């Protein structure tokens, strides 16, 4: 019982070094001369955005123990907020549109969270999914909200005040990297704050936590709202980058992918969410590019391979890639 709930929170030094190396590598990437650099920049930017999204879910799933199957709703809402706020003829400023769009997601999470955080376990999963589906169909079925086709974001937000040109792919890349690092640092700090410790206590033993005097509702609602807001930050960046939003962004698949990313990387330490998002996207691209054998288009059935891959990882590394890394480090340390 305890082993299953024990999670990797404090990252071993070699893992921290590896993360730092990853960040440095990302920062250096645009400087490397190569063909189709823009394509890779765009792909890495998307991975970083999804990493922010996965981290926001990890706050609920890995830290608080609340598995939300509707987290994409808050991702998509901020994207739509950007699309609706942007007029047809001129860009809007980043400095107010990003916080405002994230706040829209946060507000939705606050309202929905008010109802859903009262439930536990499987009921929480079902209710979060139900609300997300409601949001999905609200947009899917309403022509005024873009309908099933979605809508265009007419201009990328204007960040010249910050000396950044978001139309420049390298600029967008660096801006996203900065947000990723900022959100990671913030969540790591939060994990070891009094608030974060209570959230971890809720995951491990909510009943006991209440018995020593915590009203868990307020903590869970605050976590849900914060997670929704951060998902909104990611959704805003996604919409700004792709210039396009559609209901798929808020859909079931998007929510499920985020859960898989967090599980793949390892829950409860945010680094795992980043690793998971990159690994998931990378593996997905590999599977999508699989060759056609005879009449059988193996690449078209990437979801099948992805499913098998996730199952294999869960069996081999139940605590995800970061958990596996820790295990290997311990084994190596024990041998010395």
């Amino acid at each position: 019982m305890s082993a299953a709930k024990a999670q990797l929170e404090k990252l071993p030094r070699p893992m921290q070094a590896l993360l730092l190396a990853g960040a440095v590598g990302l920062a250096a990437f645009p400087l490397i001369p190569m063909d189709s650099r823009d394509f890779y920049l765009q792909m890495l930017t998307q991975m970083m955005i999804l990493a922010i999204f996965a981290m926001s879910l990890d706050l609920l799933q890995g830290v608080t123990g609340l598995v939300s199957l509707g987290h994409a709703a808050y991702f998509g809402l901020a994207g739509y907020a950007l699309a609706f706020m942007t007029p047809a003829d001129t860009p809007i400023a980043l400095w107010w549109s990003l916080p405002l769009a994230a706040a829209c997601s946060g507000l939705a999470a606050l309202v929905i969270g008010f109802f859903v955080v009262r439930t536990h376990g499987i009921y929480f999963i079902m209710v979060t999914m139900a609300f997300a589906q409601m949001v999905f169909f609200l947009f899917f079925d309403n022509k005024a909200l873009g309908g099933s086709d979605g809508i265009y974001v007419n201009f990328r937000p204007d960040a010249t005040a910050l000396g950044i040109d978001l139309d420049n792919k390298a600029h967008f890349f660096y801006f996203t990297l900065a947000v990723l690092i900022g959100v990671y640092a913030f969540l790591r700090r939060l994990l070891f704050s009094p608030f974060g410790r209570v959230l971890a206590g809720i995951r491990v033993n909510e009943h006991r936590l209440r018995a020593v005097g915590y009203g868990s509702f307020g903590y869970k609602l605050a976590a849900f709202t914060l997670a929704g807001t951060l998902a909104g930050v990611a959704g805003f960046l996604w919409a700004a980058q792709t210039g396009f939003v559609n209901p798929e962004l808020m859909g079931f698949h998007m929510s499920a992918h985020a859960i898989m990313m967090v599980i793949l990387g390892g829950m409860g330490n945010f680094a795992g969410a980043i690793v998971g998002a990159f690994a998931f996207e990378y593996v997905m691209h590999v599977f999508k590019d699989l060759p056609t054998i005879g009449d059988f288009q193996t690449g078209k059935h990437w979801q099948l391979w992805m499913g098998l891959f996730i199952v294999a990882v869960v069996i081999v590394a139940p605590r995800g890639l970061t958990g596996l890394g820790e295990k290997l480090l311990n084994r190596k340390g024990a041998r010395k």
Partner: protein
Amino acid sequence: MSDVRPNEVALLAAHKLTKRFGGLAAVNDVSVHLYRDRLHAVIGPNGAGKSTLTNLLSGDLPPTSGTVTIGGVETAGHSPESISRLGLGRSYQKTNIFLPFTVWENVRLAAQSRERHAPWNPLHWLQSAATQTAVNQRTERAIELAGLTHRAQAVAATISHGEQRQLEIAMTLATEPTVLLLDEPLAGMGQAEAERMVELLLKLKKDHAMMLVEHDMDAVFALADQLTVMVNGQVIASGTPADVRADPQVQAAYLGDEH
């Protein structure tokens, strides 16, 4: 039922508590008064309703009828967490701790519950939990009182059963309660561990109003100032240990087996 001390105020007063589960009255018309520096033991065979009584007092279960007041505040409609904040601390019959956390973190989390609760304050998100001085002091004191200082950095799942029982008490103490409800703190303990626990409870008695649910008769008679015997949800005798021991009904129903 309980003796009333007119010159003292009961820190916890339960009046005619009844809890029905369908047709079964698990607790039937039970009144309890707890005073500082008095240990009130509740004994009775399995299924007598002792744990249910504890759950009614702590707010884990709502009573079907009857009232509980803690420090003069009636607890009807209060959640377990707000009853805890009224000054009630309880331990559980089945060990109920944060198994993956260290002993220190278990107790620290309990101690932190007496700080201001501000889940919506962003400053609260960025503060370091490890540097809350008052919380750390309370944690240290509670761990020391419970005799776990040498195990503070051990993961709770890895310590012995007896130590886990001590940890239960330490967590309860870290909330600085005025009323302590202890549900079989000696259950499953070895002789030496049990003796240490009895010593600890004697020490705690001075500053707390305590109710002890316990099967260990040696401990009960060593500690109790007041004894209530429950059978089938009802109180069949209540008074000083000497009075209760002499009660023929009690001898027949309960002590008879052992004496």
